[in-house]
Protein backbone atom coordinates (compact mmCIF):
# COMPACT_ATOMS: atom_id res chain seq x y z
CA UNK A 1 0.00 0.00 0.00
CA UNK A 2 2.22 2.83 -1.14
CA UNK A 3 -0.43 5.53 -1.15
CA UNK A 4 -1.34 7.36 1.97
CA UNK A 5 -4.96 7.89 2.79
CA UNK A 6 -6.22 11.33 3.59
CA UNK A 7 -6.74 10.32 7.21
CA UNK A 8 -3.10 9.27 7.51
CA UNK A 9 -1.85 12.41 5.80
CA UNK A 10 -3.94 15.02 7.60
CA UNK A 11 -5.05 13.29 10.75
CA UNK A 12 -8.53 11.82 11.11
CA UNK A 13 -10.58 14.85 12.13
CA UNK A 14 -9.34 17.29 9.46
CA UNK A 15 -9.66 14.57 6.82
CA UNK A 16 -13.27 13.84 7.79
CA UNK A 17 -14.03 17.55 7.74
CA UNK A 18 -12.37 17.80 4.35
CA UNK A 19 -14.51 15.00 2.91
CA UNK A 20 -17.67 16.51 4.42
CA UNK A 21 -16.75 19.84 2.84
CA UNK A 22 -16.16 18.20 -0.55
CA UNK A 23 -19.47 16.41 -0.18
CA UNK A 24 -21.34 19.61 0.60
CA UNK A 25 -19.67 21.39 -2.31
CA UNK A 26 -20.58 18.56 -4.67
CA UNK A 27 -24.15 18.63 -3.38
CA UNK A 28 -24.32 22.37 -3.91
CA UNK A 29 -22.93 21.98 -7.43
CA UNK A 30 -25.59 19.39 -8.23
CA UNK A 31 -28.38 21.54 -6.79
CA UNK A 32 -27.16 24.66 -8.60
CA UNK A 33 -26.74 22.95 -11.98
CA UNK A 34 -30.12 21.31 -11.59
CA UNK A 35 -31.73 24.62 -10.78
CA UNK A 36 -29.99 26.30 -13.70
CA UNK A 37 -31.40 23.69 -16.08
CA UNK A 38 -34.92 23.55 -14.65
CA UNK A 39 -35.56 27.17 -13.78
CA UNK A 40 -33.02 28.84 -16.04
CA UNK A 41 -29.68 30.16 -14.88
CA UNK A 42 -29.53 33.55 -13.20
CA UNK A 43 -27.25 35.26 -10.74
CA UNK A 44 -29.01 33.69 -7.78
CA UNK A 45 -28.65 30.11 -9.04
CA UNK A 46 -25.88 29.15 -6.63
CA UNK A 47 -27.35 31.07 -3.73
CA UNK A 48 -30.87 29.65 -4.11
CA UNK A 49 -30.14 26.14 -2.75
CA UNK A 50 -28.31 27.71 0.19
CA UNK A 51 -31.24 30.03 0.87
CA UNK A 52 -33.73 27.17 0.64
CA UNK A 53 -31.57 25.07 2.94
CA UNK A 54 -31.35 27.82 5.53
CA UNK A 55 -35.11 28.30 5.38
CA UNK A 56 -35.70 24.58 5.92
CA UNK A 57 -33.31 24.62 8.86
CA UNK A 58 -35.58 27.00 10.75
CA UNK A 59 -38.89 25.69 9.50
CA UNK A 60 -41.13 24.05 12.02
CA UNK A 61 -41.70 20.35 11.58
CA UNK A 62 -45.05 19.13 10.38
CA UNK A 63 -46.08 15.79 11.66
CA UNK A 64 -48.62 13.16 10.78
CA UNK A 65 -51.05 11.06 12.75
CA UNK A 66 -49.37 8.16 14.56
CA UNK A 67 -45.99 8.19 12.80
CA UNK A 68 -43.16 5.80 13.64
CA UNK A 69 -41.01 8.67 14.76
CA UNK A 70 -37.88 6.69 15.67
CA UNK A 71 -37.58 4.93 12.31
CA UNK A 72 -38.58 8.06 10.40
CA UNK A 73 -35.87 10.25 11.95
CA UNK A 74 -33.38 7.43 11.62
CA UNK A 75 -34.06 7.14 7.90
CA UNK A 76 -33.82 10.89 7.35
CA UNK A 77 -30.49 11.12 9.18
CA UNK A 78 -29.13 8.06 7.39
CA UNK A 79 -29.58 9.43 3.86
CA UNK A 80 -26.91 12.21 4.03
CA UNK A 81 -24.70 10.11 6.32
CA UNK A 82 -24.57 7.30 3.77
CA UNK A 83 -23.91 9.79 0.99
CA UNK A 84 -20.87 11.11 2.87
CA UNK A 85 -19.72 7.60 3.78
CA UNK A 86 -19.83 6.60 0.12
CA UNK A 87 -17.69 9.63 -0.65
CA UNK A 88 -15.10 8.37 1.84
CA UNK A 89 -13.73 5.86 -0.68
CA UNK A 90 -13.74 8.22 -3.68
CA UNK A 91 -10.20 9.32 -4.44
CA UNK A 92 -10.65 13.07 -4.67
CA UNK A 93 -7.24 14.41 -5.63
CA UNK A 94 -5.64 10.96 -5.56
CA UNK A 95 -6.46 10.19 -1.94
CA UNK A 96 -9.44 8.62 -0.28
CA UNK A 97 -10.53 9.36 3.26
CA UNK A 98 -9.82 5.78 4.13
CA UNK A 99 -8.62 3.14 1.85
CA UNK A 100 -9.82 -0.40 2.22
CA UNK A 101 -9.05 -3.41 0.08
CA UNK A 102 -12.72 -3.46 -0.97
CA UNK A 103 -13.56 0.17 -1.80
CA UNK A 104 -15.89 -0.69 -4.66
CA UNK A 105 -17.92 -3.05 -2.50
CA UNK A 106 -17.98 -0.42 0.25
CA UNK A 107 -19.48 2.10 -2.16
CA UNK A 108 -22.06 -0.47 -3.22
CA UNK A 109 -22.89 -1.33 0.39
CA UNK A 110 -23.55 2.32 1.27
CA UNK A 111 -25.91 2.50 -1.63
CA UNK A 112 -27.66 -0.71 -0.52
CA UNK A 113 -28.04 0.76 2.96
CA UNK A 114 -29.73 3.67 1.26
CA UNK A 115 -32.54 1.28 0.32
CA UNK A 116 -33.22 0.70 3.96
CA UNK A 117 -32.94 4.40 4.76
CA UNK A 118 -35.28 5.55 2.00
CA UNK A 119 -37.75 2.83 2.81
CA UNK A 120 -37.77 4.07 6.41
CA UNK A 121 -38.35 7.64 5.25
CA UNK A 122 -41.37 6.34 3.34
CA UNK A 123 -42.58 4.11 6.15
CA UNK A 124 -42.19 6.51 9.05
CA UNK A 125 -44.88 9.12 8.47
CA UNK A 126 -47.74 6.59 8.25
CA UNK A 127 -49.01 8.03 4.98
CA UNK A 128 -50.02 6.41 1.71
CA UNK A 129 -47.99 8.47 -0.71
CA UNK A 130 -44.83 8.20 1.33
CA UNK A 131 -45.19 4.44 1.72
CA UNK A 132 -45.86 3.96 -1.98
CA UNK A 133 -42.70 5.96 -2.68
CA UNK A 134 -40.72 3.77 -0.31
CA UNK A 135 -41.79 0.62 -2.11
CA UNK A 136 -41.12 2.15 -5.49
CA UNK A 137 -37.59 2.82 -4.34
CA UNK A 138 -37.15 -0.81 -3.36
CA UNK A 139 -38.51 -2.06 -6.68
CA UNK A 140 -36.27 0.37 -8.53
CA UNK A 141 -33.37 -0.64 -6.33
CA UNK A 142 -33.82 -4.35 -7.02
CA UNK A 143 -33.78 -3.63 -10.74
CA UNK A 144 -30.71 -1.40 -10.86
CA UNK A 145 -28.67 -3.08 -8.15
CA UNK A 146 -27.27 -5.89 -10.30
CA UNK A 147 -26.37 -3.72 -13.32
CA UNK A 148 -24.70 -1.27 -10.93
CA UNK A 149 -22.73 -4.05 -9.24
CA UNK A 150 -21.57 -5.40 -12.58
CA UNK A 151 -20.58 -1.92 -13.74
CA UNK A 152 -18.51 -1.37 -10.58
CA UNK A 153 -16.95 -4.82 -10.77
CA UNK A 154 -16.03 -4.31 -14.43
CA UNK A 155 -13.81 -1.38 -13.48
CA UNK A 156 -12.31 -3.40 -10.64
CA UNK A 157 -11.75 -6.32 -12.98
CA UNK A 158 -9.72 -4.28 -15.43
CA UNK A 159 -7.64 -2.76 -12.63
CA UNK A 160 -7.21 -6.10 -10.86
CA UNK A 161 -8.14 -4.45 -7.59
CA UNK A 162 -11.18 -3.29 -5.65
CA UNK A 163 -9.23 -0.30 -4.34
CA UNK A 164 -10.32 2.94 -6.03
CA UNK A 165 -6.82 4.42 -6.02
CA UNK A 166 -5.60 1.33 -7.90
CA UNK A 167 -8.41 1.74 -10.42
CA UNK A 168 -7.29 5.33 -11.04
CA UNK A 169 -3.67 4.25 -11.38
CA UNK A 170 -4.64 1.54 -13.87
CA UNK A 171 -6.05 4.20 -16.19
CA UNK A 172 -2.74 5.94 -16.81
CA UNK A 173 -2.59 4.59 -20.33
CA UNK A 174 -6.22 4.67 -21.34
CA UNK A 175 -9.38 5.84 -19.60
CA UNK A 176 -11.68 2.95 -18.81
CA UNK A 177 -14.62 4.68 -20.46
CA UNK A 178 -13.08 3.80 -23.82
CA UNK A 179 -13.25 0.05 -23.28
CA UNK A 180 -16.30 0.00 -21.01
CA UNK A 181 -18.80 2.57 -22.26
CA UNK A 182 -21.77 0.41 -21.25
CA UNK A 183 -20.55 0.15 -17.68
CA UNK A 184 -20.01 3.92 -17.55
CA UNK A 185 -23.50 4.76 -18.80
CA UNK A 186 -25.12 2.17 -16.55
CA UNK A 187 -23.17 3.46 -13.57
CA UNK A 188 -24.20 7.07 -14.13
CA UNK A 189 -27.83 6.11 -14.76
CA UNK A 190 -27.87 3.98 -11.62
CA UNK A 191 -26.42 6.92 -9.73
CA UNK A 192 -29.44 8.97 -10.77
CA UNK A 193 -31.64 6.05 -9.75
CA UNK A 194 -30.24 5.70 -6.26
CA UNK A 195 -30.45 9.43 -5.70
CA UNK A 196 -34.02 9.05 -7.09
CA UNK A 197 -33.41 12.04 -9.22
CA UNK A 198 -34.33 13.19 -12.74
CA UNK A 199 -35.95 10.48 -14.85
CA UNK A 200 -35.73 8.11 -11.87
CA UNK A 201 -37.61 10.38 -9.45
CA UNK A 202 -40.52 7.93 -9.26
CA UNK A 203 -40.02 7.16 -5.52
CA UNK A 204 -40.41 10.89 -4.88
CA UNK A 205 -42.50 11.41 -7.99
CA UNK A 206 -45.02 14.18 -8.51
CA UNK A 207 -47.57 11.52 -9.44
CA UNK A 208 -47.61 10.41 -5.81
CA UNK A 209 -47.41 13.96 -4.49
CA UNK A 210 -43.73 13.76 -3.68
CA UNK A 211 -43.65 10.13 -2.51
CA UNK A 212 -41.10 9.53 0.22
CA UNK A 213 -40.55 13.25 0.57
CA UNK A 214 -44.25 14.12 0.68
CA UNK A 215 -44.52 14.37 4.46
CA UNK A 216 -41.04 15.76 5.11
CA UNK A 217 -40.59 19.24 6.49
CA UNK A 218 -37.94 21.33 8.14
CA UNK A 219 -34.69 19.64 9.03
CA UNK A 220 -35.87 16.24 7.80
CA UNK A 221 -36.50 17.52 4.30
CA UNK A 222 -33.19 19.35 4.35
CA UNK A 223 -31.37 16.16 5.33
CA UNK A 224 -33.02 14.01 2.67
CA UNK A 225 -32.66 16.55 -0.14
CA UNK A 226 -29.07 17.22 0.89
CA UNK A 227 -28.37 13.50 0.97
CA UNK A 228 -29.76 13.05 -2.53
CA UNK A 229 -27.66 15.88 -3.92
CA UNK A 230 -24.50 14.68 -2.17
CA UNK A 231 -25.15 11.13 -3.38
CA UNK A 232 -25.46 12.35 -6.94
CA UNK A 233 -22.29 14.41 -6.58
CA UNK A 234 -20.44 11.51 -4.94
CA UNK A 235 -21.54 9.16 -7.70
CA UNK A 236 -20.37 11.63 -10.35
CA UNK A 237 -17.03 11.80 -8.54
CA UNK A 238 -16.89 8.01 -8.42
CA UNK A 239 -17.68 7.82 -12.15
CA UNK A 240 -14.81 10.22 -12.74
CA UNK A 241 -12.47 8.05 -10.70
CA UNK A 242 -13.56 4.73 -12.19
CA UNK A 243 -14.01 5.60 -15.84
CA UNK A 244 -12.57 9.04 -16.63
CA UNK A 245 -9.04 8.64 -15.34
CA UNK A 246 -9.57 10.34 -11.98
CA UNK A 247 -7.26 13.30 -11.61
CA UNK A 248 -5.18 12.65 -14.71
CA UNK A 249 -4.79 15.60 -17.04
CA UNK A 250 -2.18 17.98 -18.38
CA UNK A 251 -1.08 21.38 -17.02
CA UNK A 252 -3.55 21.76 -14.19
CA UNK A 253 -3.04 20.12 -10.78
CA UNK A 254 -4.76 16.77 -10.23
CA UNK A 255 -7.54 17.81 -7.83
CA UNK A 256 -8.59 20.59 -10.22
CA UNK A 257 -8.85 18.11 -13.07
CA UNK A 258 -10.82 15.80 -10.84
CA UNK A 259 -13.33 18.46 -9.89
CA UNK A 260 -13.60 19.68 -13.49
CA UNK A 261 -14.38 16.19 -14.74
CA UNK A 262 -16.86 15.65 -11.93
CA UNK A 263 -18.52 18.94 -12.79
CA UNK A 264 -18.72 17.85 -16.42
CA UNK A 265 -20.34 14.54 -15.43
CA UNK A 266 -22.86 16.37 -13.22
CA UNK A 267 -23.70 18.83 -15.96
CA UNK A 268 -24.12 16.14 -18.59
CA UNK A 269 -26.23 14.06 -16.23
CA UNK A 270 -28.52 16.95 -15.30
CA UNK A 271 -28.78 18.21 -18.86
CA UNK A 272 -29.75 14.83 -20.25
CA UNK A 273 -31.81 13.85 -17.21
CA UNK A 274 -33.98 16.94 -17.26
CA UNK A 275 -34.88 16.56 -20.92
CA UNK A 276 -37.09 13.56 -20.31
CA UNK A 277 -40.12 12.93 -18.13
CA UNK A 278 -40.03 10.64 -15.13
CA UNK A 279 -39.78 7.02 -16.22
CA UNK A 280 -42.48 4.98 -14.52
CA UNK A 281 -40.98 2.08 -12.55
CA UNK A 282 -43.31 -0.55 -13.99
CA UNK A 283 -41.67 0.19 -17.33
CA UNK A 284 -38.06 0.66 -16.23
CA UNK A 285 -37.73 -2.46 -14.09
CA UNK A 286 -38.34 -4.73 -17.08
CA UNK A 287 -35.59 -2.94 -19.02
CA UNK A 288 -33.34 -3.21 -15.97
CA UNK A 289 -33.71 -6.97 -15.76
CA UNK A 290 -34.01 -7.87 -19.43
CA UNK A 291 -31.58 -5.44 -21.07
CA UNK A 292 -29.18 -3.91 -18.57
CA UNK A 293 -28.24 -7.08 -16.70
CA UNK A 294 -27.26 -9.01 -19.88
CA UNK A 295 -25.54 -5.95 -21.33
CA UNK A 296 -23.42 -5.30 -18.25
CA UNK A 297 -22.58 -9.01 -18.06
CA UNK A 298 -21.43 -8.90 -21.69
CA UNK A 299 -19.43 -5.78 -20.90
CA UNK A 300 -17.74 -7.60 -18.03
CA UNK A 301 -17.03 -10.54 -20.35
CA UNK A 302 -15.42 -8.29 -22.95
CA UNK A 303 -13.26 -6.65 -20.29
CA UNK A 304 -12.35 -10.04 -18.82
CA UNK A 305 -11.16 -11.23 -22.24
CA UNK A 306 -9.14 -8.02 -22.63
CA UNK A 307 -7.60 -8.58 -19.20
CA UNK A 308 -6.61 -12.13 -20.16
CA UNK A 309 -4.99 -10.76 -23.32
CA UNK A 310 -2.95 -8.37 -21.23
CA UNK A 311 -4.64 -5.29 -22.66
CA UNK A 312 -4.64 -3.38 -19.37
CA UNK A 313 -1.25 -4.58 -18.19
Amino acid at each position, binding site marked *: MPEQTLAEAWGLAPAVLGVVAVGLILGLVVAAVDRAVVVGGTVGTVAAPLRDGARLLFEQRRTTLAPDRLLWRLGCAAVPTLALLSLAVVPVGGRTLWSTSADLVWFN*AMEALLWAAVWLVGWGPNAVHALTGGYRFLAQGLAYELPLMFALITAGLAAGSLRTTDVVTAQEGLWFVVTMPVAFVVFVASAAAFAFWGPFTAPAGPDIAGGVTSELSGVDRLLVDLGRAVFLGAAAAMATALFLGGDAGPWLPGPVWFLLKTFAVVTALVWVGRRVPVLRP*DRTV*EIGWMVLVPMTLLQALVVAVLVLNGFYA
Partner: protein
Amino acid sequence: MTELSGWAFTAVAVLGVLSVAAGIAVFVVDSMARATFALLASFLAVAGVLLALDLVYLAVVTALMMTIEMAVMAVFMIMFMMNPAGLMPMTMVHNAKGSAVIGAATFVVLAVGIWTIDWPTRNPPRPDDSTRQLGEAIMGSHMLVMLVIGISLFATILAGTVLATARGRYDRFGPDLDADRPDDPVPGGFRR
Protein backbone atom coordinates in the same frame (compact mmCIF):
# COMPACT_ATOMS: atom_id res chain seq x y z
CA MET B 1 -7.18 -12.36 20.65
CA THR B 2 -3.76 -11.21 21.73
CA GLU B 3 -2.80 -9.69 18.42
CA LEU B 4 -5.79 -7.34 18.46
CA SER B 5 -5.01 -3.78 19.41
CA GLY B 6 -6.81 -2.31 22.39
CA TRP B 7 -8.93 -0.18 20.12
CA ALA B 8 -10.05 -3.10 18.00
CA PHE B 9 -10.69 -5.22 21.07
CA THR B 10 -12.98 -2.58 22.53
CA ALA B 11 -14.78 -2.20 19.20
CA VAL B 12 -15.34 -5.95 18.91
CA ALA B 13 -16.66 -6.14 22.47
CA VAL B 14 -18.99 -3.14 22.14
CA LEU B 15 -20.29 -4.18 18.73
CA GLY B 16 -20.76 -7.75 19.94
CA VAL B 17 -22.91 -6.57 22.82
CA LEU B 18 -24.75 -4.24 20.46
CA SER B 19 -25.50 -7.04 18.02
CA VAL B 20 -26.85 -9.28 20.78
CA ALA B 21 -28.94 -6.41 22.17
CA ALA B 22 -30.36 -5.64 18.73
CA GLY B 23 -31.05 -9.33 18.28
CA ILE B 24 -33.04 -9.38 21.52
CA ALA B 25 -34.86 -6.24 20.41
CA VAL B 26 -36.21 -8.18 17.42
CA PHE B 27 -38.39 -10.16 19.79
CA VAL B 28 -39.23 -7.31 22.13
CA VAL B 29 -40.54 -4.67 19.74
CA ASP B 30 -44.12 -4.92 18.59
CA SER B 31 -43.97 -3.76 15.00
CA MET B 32 -42.79 -5.64 11.96
CA ALA B 33 -40.79 -2.71 10.64
CA ARG B 34 -38.97 -2.24 13.92
CA ALA B 35 -38.28 -5.97 14.19
CA THR B 36 -36.87 -6.01 10.65
CA PHE B 37 -34.61 -3.08 11.29
CA ALA B 38 -33.52 -4.32 14.71
CA LEU B 39 -32.38 -7.46 12.91
CA LEU B 40 -30.58 -5.29 10.35
CA ALA B 41 -28.90 -3.34 13.16
CA SER B 42 -27.73 -6.65 14.63
CA PHE B 43 -26.24 -7.72 11.30
CA LEU B 44 -24.60 -4.32 10.82
CA ALA B 45 -23.00 -4.66 14.25
CA VAL B 46 -21.61 -8.03 13.14
CA ALA B 47 -20.30 -6.32 9.99
CA GLY B 48 -18.68 -3.77 12.29
CA VAL B 49 -16.99 -6.59 14.23
CA LEU B 50 -15.57 -7.96 10.98
CA LEU B 51 -14.39 -4.46 10.07
CA ALA B 52 -12.63 -4.12 13.40
CA LEU B 53 -10.91 -7.45 12.70
CA ASP B 54 -9.68 -5.90 9.43
CA LEU B 55 -11.71 -8.26 7.26
CA VAL B 56 -12.99 -5.45 5.10
CA TYR B 57 -14.45 -7.46 2.27
CA LEU B 58 -16.37 -9.80 4.54
CA ALA B 59 -17.61 -6.85 6.58
CA VAL B 60 -18.80 -4.86 3.59
CA VAL B 61 -20.38 -7.87 1.91
CA THR B 62 -22.20 -8.73 5.13
CA ALA B 63 -23.60 -5.21 5.32
CA LEU B 64 -24.51 -5.27 1.62
CA MET B 65 -26.22 -8.65 1.58
CA MET B 66 -28.04 -8.25 4.87
CA THR B 67 -29.36 -4.81 3.97
CA ILE B 68 -30.72 -6.05 0.69
CA GLU B 69 -32.15 -9.09 2.42
CA MET B 70 -33.91 -7.01 5.03
CA ALA B 71 -35.20 -4.64 2.38
CA VAL B 72 -36.62 -7.54 0.37
CA MET B 73 -38.07 -8.94 3.57
CA ALA B 74 -39.68 -5.58 4.22
CA VAL B 75 -41.29 -5.78 0.81
CA PHE B 76 -42.73 -9.20 1.28
CA MET B 77 -43.59 -9.02 4.96
CA ILE B 78 -44.97 -5.56 5.28
CA MET B 79 -45.82 -4.30 1.83
CA PHE B 80 -49.21 -5.87 1.59
CA MET B 81 -50.13 -4.94 5.12
CA MET B 82 -51.60 -1.62 4.24
CA ASN B 83 -51.34 0.01 7.64
CA PRO B 84 -48.54 2.44 7.00
CA ALA B 85 -46.19 2.65 9.98
CA GLY B 86 -47.42 -0.68 11.34
CA LEU B 87 -49.99 0.90 13.57
CA MET B 88 -51.35 -2.28 15.02
CA PRO B 89 -48.97 -3.55 17.67
CA MET B 90 -48.31 -7.20 17.09
CA THR B 91 -46.25 -9.83 18.78
CA MET B 92 -43.09 -10.81 16.96
CA VAL B 93 -42.84 -14.22 18.60
CA HIS B 94 -44.35 -17.37 17.23
CA ASN B 95 -43.92 -20.78 18.84
CA ALA B 96 -41.99 -19.25 21.73
CA LYS B 97 -41.16 -22.56 23.43
CA GLY B 98 -39.86 -24.28 20.30
CA SER B 99 -37.75 -21.35 19.24
CA ALA B 100 -36.32 -20.93 22.74
CA VAL B 101 -35.25 -24.58 22.72
CA ILE B 102 -33.70 -24.30 19.26
CA GLY B 103 -31.97 -21.04 20.18
CA ALA B 104 -30.54 -22.44 23.41
CA ALA B 105 -29.38 -25.63 21.70
CA THR B 106 -27.66 -23.68 18.92
CA PHE B 107 -25.98 -21.46 21.47
CA VAL B 108 -24.70 -24.48 23.42
CA VAL B 109 -23.39 -26.20 20.27
CA LEU B 110 -21.59 -23.07 19.11
CA ALA B 111 -20.18 -22.25 22.54
CA VAL B 112 -18.95 -25.80 23.06
CA GLY B 113 -17.44 -25.76 19.59
CA ILE B 114 -15.66 -22.48 20.18
CA TRP B 115 -14.09 -23.58 23.44
CA THR B 116 -13.23 -27.16 22.52
CA ILE B 117 -11.85 -26.82 19.00
CA ASP B 118 -8.09 -26.86 18.91
CA TRP B 119 -7.61 -23.51 17.19
CA PRO B 120 -4.27 -23.09 15.41
CA THR B 121 -1.95 -21.19 17.70
CA ARG B 122 0.91 -20.35 15.39
CA ASN B 123 0.84 -16.78 14.15
CA PRO B 124 1.11 -16.73 10.40
CA PRO B 125 2.13 -13.35 8.99
CA ARG B 126 -0.98 -11.27 8.39
CA PRO B 127 -1.69 -10.95 4.70
CA ASP B 128 -1.27 -7.51 3.16
CA ASP B 129 -4.60 -7.79 1.54
CA SER B 130 -7.17 -10.01 3.19
CA THR B 131 -9.56 -9.43 0.30
CA ARG B 132 -7.09 -10.88 -2.19
CA GLN B 133 -6.41 -13.82 0.09
CA LEU B 134 -10.12 -14.49 0.42
CA GLY B 135 -10.62 -14.21 -3.33
CA GLU B 136 -7.81 -16.66 -3.99
CA ALA B 137 -9.25 -19.09 -1.47
CA ILE B 138 -12.73 -18.90 -2.98
CA MET B 139 -11.73 -18.77 -6.61
CA GLY B 140 -8.81 -21.14 -6.29
CA SER B 141 -9.05 -24.38 -4.36
CA HIS B 142 -12.74 -23.98 -3.52
CA MET B 143 -13.86 -22.88 -6.96
CA LEU B 144 -15.86 -26.03 -7.64
CA VAL B 145 -17.75 -25.85 -4.35
CA MET B 146 -18.51 -22.17 -4.85
CA LEU B 147 -19.74 -22.72 -8.41
CA VAL B 148 -22.01 -25.57 -7.35
CA ILE B 149 -23.40 -23.52 -4.45
CA GLY B 150 -23.89 -20.49 -6.66
CA ILE B 151 -25.70 -22.37 -9.38
CA SER B 152 -27.90 -24.29 -6.96
CA LEU B 153 -28.85 -21.08 -5.17
CA PHE B 154 -29.70 -19.48 -8.48
CA ALA B 155 -31.71 -22.53 -9.54
CA THR B 156 -33.56 -22.39 -6.22
CA ILE B 157 -34.45 -18.76 -6.75
CA LEU B 158 -35.73 -19.45 -10.25
CA ALA B 159 -37.66 -22.54 -9.13
CA GLY B 160 -39.20 -20.63 -6.25
CA THR B 161 -40.31 -17.85 -8.55
CA VAL B 162 -41.74 -20.27 -11.09
CA LEU B 163 -43.66 -22.13 -8.38
CA ALA B 164 -44.93 -18.94 -6.80
CA THR B 165 -46.17 -17.17 -9.87
CA ALA B 166 -49.68 -18.00 -10.94
CA ARG B 167 -49.20 -16.95 -14.53
CA GLY B 168 -46.85 -18.77 -16.85
CA ARG B 169 -45.74 -18.11 -20.40
CA TYR B 170 -48.86 -19.80 -21.81
CA ASP B 171 -51.01 -17.25 -19.99
CA ARG B 172 -48.86 -14.45 -21.32
CA PHE B 173 -48.26 -15.50 -24.91
CA GLY B 174 -51.23 -17.76 -25.63
CA PRO B 175 -51.43 -21.56 -25.97
CA ASP B 176 -49.09 -21.60 -28.97
CA LEU B 177 -46.76 -18.94 -27.53
CA ASP B 178 -47.29 -16.94 -30.69
CA ALA B 179 -48.82 -13.72 -29.32
CA ASP B 180 -46.93 -10.62 -30.38
CA ARG B 181 -47.39 -8.88 -27.07
CA PRO B 182 -47.70 -10.58 -23.69
CA ASP B 183 -51.07 -10.26 -22.04
CA ASP B 184 -50.05 -8.72 -18.71
CA PRO B 185 -52.22 -6.92 -16.16
CA VAL B 186 -49.62 -4.12 -16.20
CA PRO B 187 -47.63 -3.70 -19.41
CA GLY B 188 -43.90 -3.71 -18.87
CA GLY B 189 -41.09 -1.79 -20.53
CA PHE B 190 -41.04 -3.87 -23.69
CA ARG B 191 -44.02 -2.78 -25.69
CA ARG B 192 -43.66 -5.69 -28.05
